[in-house]
């Protein structure tokens, strides 16, 4: 039996690659997001049922969507880190988790604010909102576990195991919450089950989705660079990298 650890993806390579891409992704995110939001806020027509309050959708739906995708991405990173022993993947988890939790928070908050004019209450035990709240708790668990360890490496591995357990649980949680909601006849936000959206609303929404996707990408890349630096601070390549930066 022999074990080996191959430096499959070299940290310095990834660090530089991310550094090269980060400005472009950031600019792209800012441009697309600004376009989508201005379009959605000012140019899209008002909803015939909800009036202008529906414009919250342009933040709510993309963040809700990507909050889930980010959790799955985190679990996939953890899985890759475990199976192929890639430390890069372990670190990616630490980069994704804070972004995911912020997206989840935003979707929850906007959902609640939207609920007030629609249902007349800030919080309704609606299936989607409840699932989102549980997802928020799952994120909190992963982040809390990561920060509980003084050694980041161990923390990332432990949090990765939890993220994998969580991702197996998500469908079960979703199903149970849906069932529970049908049992108790709660309110549902009907906007999701309406006939297909008019293009004049759909296109700005899709633009916002792309904008938020790019934003999530940029934020994760920024954090990933930080994470690589933190783990590799005493390596010679960091010295070259940072000192070059100072001279430039």
């Amino acid at each position, binding site marked *: *039996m022999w074990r080996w*650890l191959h430096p499959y993806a070299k940290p310095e390579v990834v660090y530089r690659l991310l550094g090269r891409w980060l400005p472009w992704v950031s600019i792209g995110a800012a441009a697309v997001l600004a376009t989508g939001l201005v379009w959605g806020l000012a140019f899209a027509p008002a909803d015939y049922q909800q009036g202008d309050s529906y414009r919250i959708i342009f933040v709510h739906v993309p963040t809700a969507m990507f909050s889930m995708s980010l959790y799955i991405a985190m679990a996939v990173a953890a899985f890759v880190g475990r199976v192929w022993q890639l430390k890069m993947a372990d670190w990616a988890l630490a980069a994704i988790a804070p972004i995911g939790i912020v997206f989840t928070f935003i979707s929850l908050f906007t959902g609640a604010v939207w609920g007030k004019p629609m249902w007349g209450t800030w919080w309704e035990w609606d299936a989607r909102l409840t699932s989102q709240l549980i997802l928020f708790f799952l994120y909190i668990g992963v982040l809390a576990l990561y920060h509980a360890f003084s050694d980041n490496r161990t923390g990332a591995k432990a949090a990765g195991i939890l993220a994998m357990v969580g991702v197996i649980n998500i469908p079960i949680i979703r199903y149970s919450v849906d069932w529970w909601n049908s049992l108790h006849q709660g309110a549902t936000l009907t906007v999701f089950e309406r006939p297909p959206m008019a293009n004049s609303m759909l296109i700005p929404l899709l633009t916002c989705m792309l904008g938020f996707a790019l934003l999530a990408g940029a934020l994760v890349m920024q954090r990933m660079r930080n994470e690589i630096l933190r783990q*590799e*601070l*005493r390596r010679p390549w960091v010295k070259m990298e940072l000192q070059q930066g100072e001279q430039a």
Partner: protein
Amino acid sequence: MSTVLAVSHLASQRAGRTLFAELTFDLAQGEVLHIEGVNGAGKSTLLRSLVGLVQLQAGHITFFPEQPDLQQNWRAHTLFMGHKAGVKSELTALENVALQAQLCGVDNIDAWQLLETVGLLGLEDLPAGQLSAGQQRRIALTKLWYSNALLWILDEPFTALDTFGIELLQQKFAEHTANGGAIILTSHQQLTWQTERLKRLRIAGGDDAGY
């Protein structure tokens, strides 16, 4: 005498600091490897990474390279003892020994005899929690008397033992190596037992070792 362990280009870090790098050595049957180094040099980390408790930064470890059947199941032929004794304080010395042996797959041991051998006569049915640290360690050390492991990896085996205990342990080491076993150990003490098959490995530790 065949090789029991071949290690090449081993490297390890803790908290971003290099403990050792490019560590290469091997060990044959009948040999003893004494790993030396100051506190924090990474002796324990080295031993723990050999058996897979700590993840390696780089390097290859091959157990029993010349005996494929042993290599397949190297864990069964390797015995590791860390700083902690692995003795349950609620259970008596006797119960501890019996359960330990069962876990190793040895069922025909005379636990009473073993405990007498390691100097715990008359303490057999006291809860281990009432015994001293050295006595608890002796309970754990009974493993050496019945284990069939070829390679012993012992982290500070002499800790908490009195001179009689240390003497006894060294006799056991001599017996093990004479029977074709091999030992890797860390200790701040010099061995009083003389053997020409003693190898020494010094880990400098800290940043000196790296790059």
